[in-house]
């Protein structure tokens, strides 16, 4: 495979974007999980799907959209969905989590309509759903690199505000930090990372890459920084392992990556049981 990577551009694209996504998806995932917003990733990925389907549909009628990478439209929809979730959260003050299923179903509905308008599933759409190694273009890779640089830099710069907001929202507001703006920046980052990840893992599995490594890490980590570190390591292990296996066994990469993440999760749960069992 190493020789394949050296030889084929599409494999280089897939591996580099995999390595990047394996780190940034769980990085944001930690904040999503501890804030109990795990379903937001699902909602936004379905909105992204609607955007991609819309782009493919429009591509039939306009050469502009035919030439446009559907990822951009997916990204626009995803950020729009994130903004809508925020608006809805202020409308339903006491049922903030309601915003997520509303956007989720809206996304699926819109997506299905555009898919049927675009004459059903074609292979292109299929690759967005489940991820594909061969589908990542150089342009995709560059988009992913730019998004990741933005995300990592932002998280480093506003880390302490993000932490405070995640740990104790009321206290964060009482201390007078710009809680609203910070939350908004955060949710836009989530939307961008979801759109960026879908080429590899596929829309249906994006949220798993954001939550499963965190679920494993949270079992064994001590402190927040360690939780982030372990999550990124687990995410990276899942992506790399998944890509290798899927390449050799000719499996869908998205599914393989997620199954490795599940395996890691099971192992950490067992390990924790074993360790605490011995301590008793």
């Amino acid at each position: 495979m190493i020789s394949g990577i050296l030889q084929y551009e599409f494999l280089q694209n897939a591996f580099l974007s995999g390595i990047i996504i394996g780190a940034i998806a769980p990085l944001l995932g930690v904040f999503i999980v501890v804030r109990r917003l795990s379903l937001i990733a699902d909602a936004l990925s379905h909105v992204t799907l609607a955007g991609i389907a819309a782009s493919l549909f429009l591509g039939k009628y306009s050469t502009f959209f035919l030439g446009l990478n559907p990822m951009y439209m997916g990204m626009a929809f995803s950020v729009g969905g994130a903004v809508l979730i925020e608006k809805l959260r202020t409308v339903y003050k006491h049922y903030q989590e309601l915003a997520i299923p509303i956007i989720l179903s809206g996304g699926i509905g819109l997506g299905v309509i555009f898919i049927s308008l675009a004459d059903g599933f074609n292979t292109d759409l299929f690759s967005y759903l489940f991820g594909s190694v061969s589908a990542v273009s150089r342009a995709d890779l560059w988009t992913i690199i730019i998004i990741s640089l933005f995300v990592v830099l932002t998280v480093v710069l506003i880390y302490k505000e993000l932490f405070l907001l995640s740990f104790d929202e009321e206290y964060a507001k009482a201390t007078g930090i710009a809680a609203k703006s910070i939350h908004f920046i955060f949710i836009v980052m989530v939307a961008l990372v979801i759109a960026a990840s879908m080429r590899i893992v596929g829309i249906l599995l994006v949220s798993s890459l954001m939550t499963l490594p965190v679920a494993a890490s949270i079992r064994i980590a001590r402190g927040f920084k360690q939780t982030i570190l372990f999550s990124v390591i687990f995410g990276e292990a899942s992506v790399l392992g998944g890509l290798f296996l899927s390449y050799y066994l000719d499996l869908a990469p998205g599914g393989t990556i997620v199954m490795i993440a599940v395996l890691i999760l099971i192992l950490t749960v067992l390990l924790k049981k074993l360790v605490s069992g011995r301590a008793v």
Partner: protein
Amino acid sequence: MKNNLPIIELNHIYYRYDRENVLEDVSLRIEKGAFLGIVGPNGSGKSTLLKLILGLIKPQKGTIKLFGEEIKHFRDQQKIGFVSQKANSFNSGFPATVYEVVASGLTKKMGLFRFLRKQDEDKIVKVIKSVGMQQFMNRNIGELSGGQQQRVFIARALVSEPELLILDEPTVGVDAENVQSFYEMLEDLNQTGITLLLVTHDIGAISDKVTNVACLNKGLFFHGTSSEFEEQKIKGISEIYGHDVHLLSHEHHEGAHT
């Protein structure tokens, strides 16, 4: 002895969440160096009053000044430390160490795009020691008992070296022995010049520690020094409250605001 500068000034505050007023015409001045105990039955608006002072909600009528400044222009929130009533109901699975939680109390004081420096780290360790939690510094907060968690939240409020410390029933879930030492700690803090605002149900335990007492039940029924309060208490607690309430029992929830 005491500087008479008011740290908090409430003028004719009215507040309602829905239709009914929760606070009615509340005016209150808290002077620098005071230790004010606010008492009142469940649902009497104590937590609401604190939320107004913290700027989490805005009054429909009336004005609030903090450190002599209109609340909407007030930006020095690091001068105020806050321990909320619900500190015990935070997400207990949150993977953060005691150190990380206390450090988060410096967020506003440090400002955006700043990182912890050596002297900040020393300060964090020092304040953790001062609440007696040094041996738990690297434990996850969820692995501590309720009373220990409460100490951590007090350390978080103290780490930015506030001039005003606001506490909303901080002793809920803390055992009797620790409640006593907790109040002693507050007294010490007050002695060092920090102004304290403490909401509690436990009038008896604090009346010898506080300098002032305020009794709240929608309106402010009493506000005076603790010795004035003791005199009034002899005349009967229900008179102080405006109507008959069971101050020391926590069960009488209903009725309190009907």
